[in-house]
């Protein structure tokens, strides 16, 4: 009966998760070798703590995004929900305990009530999304685009209203701040959440129904699956996860800054889910893959920062963009046996100068501070890239003729 079922080894080999682990190891080793400061050798503890912290923070709301994506939707608002939650948390602290806020010593109950209130506000945002999508009938893209823009502006207004027209809320209590941002406890909460979501998605009826709905919503509805309620669940889960991150970020950065905090993070979460094997068409994806996707993405960002040495998050967006394109391109290639012509077409030829210019300029940006750097390095690098792409294009055309 199982004659054509692939063996465990082959299944392991073809799984996104396994490939991600291999790719991750490759990045770590490459960083060890190429990093001029050799940080991974000299200070493994701090390096891994940094990566774990960043992975976990991304992981929280990437899990939410993954559930939403698997169920066939999309959530563009998580960055704004993070900012909003930080603001709501700060505002609740001020409103519940103004004296404690000013003196720098918060009561335990205040922190607990503020946490519950913040998570509740996340659940309310999720409910709002679900209502806009199921009852009003907006596409998820539009509904969450509205809250992406709207909630950030709402949070700025809220901050000004509760905090004497200031544009941010400082975290008042240093002891609590250390508790909340503590890597170990945040990681434990994350692992617990990830396990819970993994169990939900892979072992329960609800998880199966979410997969089914994401793959074919019409068929799911006709199979008697309560699609509207499932959507509510997915969007609430996504928003509550983002709220948790909001509280931790608040402690981590020491202030709720709704104008800039977590801006653009929603796309990082979507990117991590996609790198981890989730399909934006819905129905496909795993929680383990998403967690590994977060780890891989954060490690690559960290690696580039180490190797290039700028240390800033300037290039984070570029890296996310490149990694997403590469991850999806390679996972697509597994599907069809024929090699896709990347460059052997009119648009393909037109893309070669664009890519070469981009490569040359990136080279210059990355290494301009190095003592050995000269402008001709970047030019040569760009020309080499152009050459490689041209050769690939020519090979593609010759292959096409041969078929």
């Amino acid at each position: 009966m199982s004659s054509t079922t692939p063996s465990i080894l082959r299944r392991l080999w073809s799984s996104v998760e396994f490939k991600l682990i291999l790719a991750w190891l490759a990045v770590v080793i490459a960083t060890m070798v190429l990093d001029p400061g050799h940080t991974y050798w000299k200070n493994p503890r701090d390096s891994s703590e940094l990566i774990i912290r960043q992975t976990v923070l991304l992981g929280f709301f990437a899990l939410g995004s993954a559930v939403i994506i698997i169920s066939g939707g999309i959530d563009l608002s998580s960055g704004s929900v993070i900012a909003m939650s930080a603001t709501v948390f700060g505002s609740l602290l001020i409103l519940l305990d103004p004296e404690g806020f000013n003196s720098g010593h918060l009561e335990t109950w205040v922190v607990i009530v503020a946490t519950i209130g913040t998570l509740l506000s996340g659940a309310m945002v999720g409910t709002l999304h679900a209502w806009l999508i199921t009852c009003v009938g907006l596409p998820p893209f539009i509904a969450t685009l509205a809250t992406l823009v709207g909630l950030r502006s709402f949070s700025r207004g809220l901050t000004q209203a509760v905090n004497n027209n200031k544009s941010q809320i400082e975290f008042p209590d240093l002891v609590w701040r250390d508790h909340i941002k503590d890597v170990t406890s945040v990681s434990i909460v994350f692992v617990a959440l990830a396990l819970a979501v993994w169990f939900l998605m892979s072992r329960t009826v609800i998880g199966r129904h979410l997969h089914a709905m994401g793959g074919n919503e019409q068929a799911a509805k006709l199979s008697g699956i309560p699609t509207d309620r499932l959507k509510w669940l997915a969007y609430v889960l996504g928003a509550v996860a983002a709220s948790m991150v909001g509280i931790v970020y608040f402690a981590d950065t020491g202030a709720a800054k709704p104008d800039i905090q977590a801006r653009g993070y929603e796309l990082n979460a979507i990117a991590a889910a996609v790198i981890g094997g989730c399909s934006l068409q819905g129905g496909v994806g795993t929680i383990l893959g998403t967690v590994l996707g977060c780890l891989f993405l954060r490690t690559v960002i960290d690696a580039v920062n180490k190797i290039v040495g700028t240390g800033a998050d300037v290039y984070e967006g570029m890296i996310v963009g490149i990694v997403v394109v590469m991850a999806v391109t390679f996972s697509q290639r597994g599907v069809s046996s024929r090699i896709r012509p990347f460059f052997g077409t009119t648009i393909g030829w037109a893309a070669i100068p664009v890519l070469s210019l981009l490569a040359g300029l990136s080279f210059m940006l990355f290494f301009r501070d190095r003592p050995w750097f000269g402008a001709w390095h970047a030019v040569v690098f760009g020309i080499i890239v152009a050459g490689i792409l041209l050769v690939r294009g020519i090979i593609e055309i010759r292959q096409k003729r041969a078929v």
Partner: protein
Amino acid sequence: MEPVISIRNIGKQFSAVRALDNVSFDVMPGELHAVMGENGAGKSTLMKILSGVISDFEGEFRLRNKPVEFSSTRDAENAGVSIIHQELNLVEQLSVAANIFLGRESRSWLGILNQLEMDDRAAALLAELDTNLFPHALVSTLRVGDQQLVEIAKALSLQAEILIMDEPTSALTESEVERLYRVIEKLRTKGVTILYISHKMEEVFRLADRITVLRDGQFVQTLDRKETTPRAIAHLMVGRDIAPRIKHTTARDSAVVLETKNLSLLWPGHSRGWRLQNVSLKLHRGEILGVAGLMGAGRTELLECLFGASELPPQGEILIDGQPTRFSHPSQAMKAGIAMVTEDRKRLGLFAHMTVRENITVCALGDVSSAGVISRTRETTAAISQVNSLSIKTDSPEAPITTLSGGNQQKCIIGRCMLTNPKVLLLDDPTRGVDIGAKAELYLLMEQLASDGMAIIVTSSELPELLTVSDRILVLSEGVLTGEFSRSEATEQKIMEAATKAQA
């Protein structure tokens, strides 16, 4: 005379299904060449290859003795080959003229659209077809028959020398069919070669010069129409006898399971105003009730109303075991013992990214789980029980559903329904895209279920099929019940008459 099209050893594989295998025949210039075969015989696939819709296939075909390789319909159109699809390919939001010249718009200098010229040329083309359609009417406001004429006008505007028509009459009323025949005559006098796909004997014998029969993706024979008979063709199409029907005793006198009284479904924004109008019917235990009608007659809508899946809530009454019910969601209908196999398997039935097991158990997960956690062993047992009892051909319940043939996929969906223990089974065109052997199996299965006491409503786009399986046949025309025939009274002729009865 040289053939205008030579088809040589053409084959096509869709994942697990061999749609075409080593097909070769010739089409002569100026002839009307009918291609016949049951659903799933490969007619449509072959036509998609000839018209450039499918560009990777085995074998070759030659146009006027030159090998050609179309990579898109555009290439085919430039070579003078146009296709009128069964499901029309028009942009409904655009006007008639805009559709005719889509992608080849006439432009003045600066590249600005020359609307006037297109309207004029469209009017001229439509006049050639003896129709009085307005070039600037929106396609969405036209009836199916008129939309088809727009497609034909488009083909004319391309100076098509070869026109492929894929079951052009399947959605037409009788008068529209007559008009189409006149248009076809006109095209023939202009010297257009026509490849005509159909499984309707009557029209093929009226129109065709030669007939090619395909069966299960293989070429059977090309015959001169004058030298053959409908019976001979039918024999070639089927190739083997469909398993004879085990006649179960019609349970006329037994209990009414499902009844509707004056069931209506509105259609806002449409000139007709309703999708269904005052449909009253009774379904008995152990009965197979066939619902016939042309495309758009309301067959699917009727089943959707009964299953709580219609977009708007229906008006009128639905009674199950004599109790009035009202479903606003399929889950309620399923709880009440109704199950439905949807018409468009790919779009409405299958979870293509899931396994056979997951597809079968998706409706019955509550029965194989405790506290919301699925028990894998119980789930697998349930799936295997259906795989065995419906004899679904699969390597394992863990195989991806897409590796199964159409017929076996359909059985998985029926198995999915069976796991919910329904009293009433709604089957919407269940044999669509299923090969002929599997069809016979599905008929037997329906028969068996009915004799076990299940009440079944089945629709089909093929009348012979309905005549084979049904105890009783209801006919819908434009949403209104226009006929009811018992098994002994029903003939294709009578049903077609009722189905094309125009509504005031």
